[in-house]
């Protein structure tokens, strides 16, 4: 049952991920990316990471992709006109990706505990959000506050960047 759900979610995620690359229209790509993120969130849930799954849907599939769609609509992008495909560029890209997949397969095969199944948790019904919160506010309090400053800086930077007269 778990394996079936895993394959369902991962094929869902990977197919919509391929859609991002192969759709011609940017809007279709963005919608495909939303579905891919939803599939990824369900993969997180199969790993008992409920908090990360919810954050993935809220932040990525919600906020980030709305921003993407907003910008695509704002720029009024049509479907790309077909330009002559550069064979050398596709071949180079294919070689890089093939090399990456080969290296990944070697690493996964050589990993000693790669084929172990999920270890049983000590307390399966534990509140996952509370545990992440404890880790976040006890062990990572300073990084958490620095992230807040980063978000503020990004907000100000975006406002400065998108002013009309950029001098």
């Amino acid at each position, binding site marked *: 049952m778990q394996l079936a759900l895993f394959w369902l979610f991962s094929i869902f995620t990977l197919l919509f991920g391929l859609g991002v690359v192969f759709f011609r229209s940017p809007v279709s790509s963005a919608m495909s990316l939303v579905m891919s993120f939803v599939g990824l969130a369900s993969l997180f849930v199969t790993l008992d990471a409920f908090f990360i799954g919810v954050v993935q849907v809220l932040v990525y599939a919600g906020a*980030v992709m709305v921003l*993407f769609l907003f910008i695509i609509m704002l720029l009024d992008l049509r479907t790309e006109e077909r330009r002559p495909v550069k064979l050398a560029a596709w071949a180079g890209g294919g070689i890089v990706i093939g090399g990456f997949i080969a290296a990944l397969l070697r690493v996964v095969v050589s990993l000693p505990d790669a084929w172990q199944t999920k270890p049983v948790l000590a307390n399966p019904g534990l509140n996952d959000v509370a545990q992440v919160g404890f880790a976040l506010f006890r062990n990572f309090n300073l990084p958490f506050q620095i992230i807040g400053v980063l978000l503020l800086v990004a907000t100000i930077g975006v406002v400065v960047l998108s002013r009309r007269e950029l001098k």
Partner: protein
Amino acid sequence: MPTLAHYLLVSGGLFSIGLAGVLLRRNILIIFMGLELMLNAANLSLVAFSRFHPGHDGLPGYNAQVLVFFIITVAAAEVAVGLAIIVALFRAKQTTHVEDLDTLKF
């Protein structure tokens, strides 16, 4: 039962798809979406390792999930800044096609 290798292979596949988007597409917005896919693939492998290597208390490694939380936050900031740059670029050049953006080309 799915094993750690299953999750790592899905994560690697997602990363390759993102890499393909960055390398093969010429629309700067699609390249940006490919970057997001790659970040998410890294998140998936982090969460998989946290679940498959529980600590001494028999709980998943929550530090990894906090790291994923930070990655999501930084990625959100990155998307906001990147899209603002793309809008400024579009205002100056009227294109999102990377082959038309060759001002810095040597």
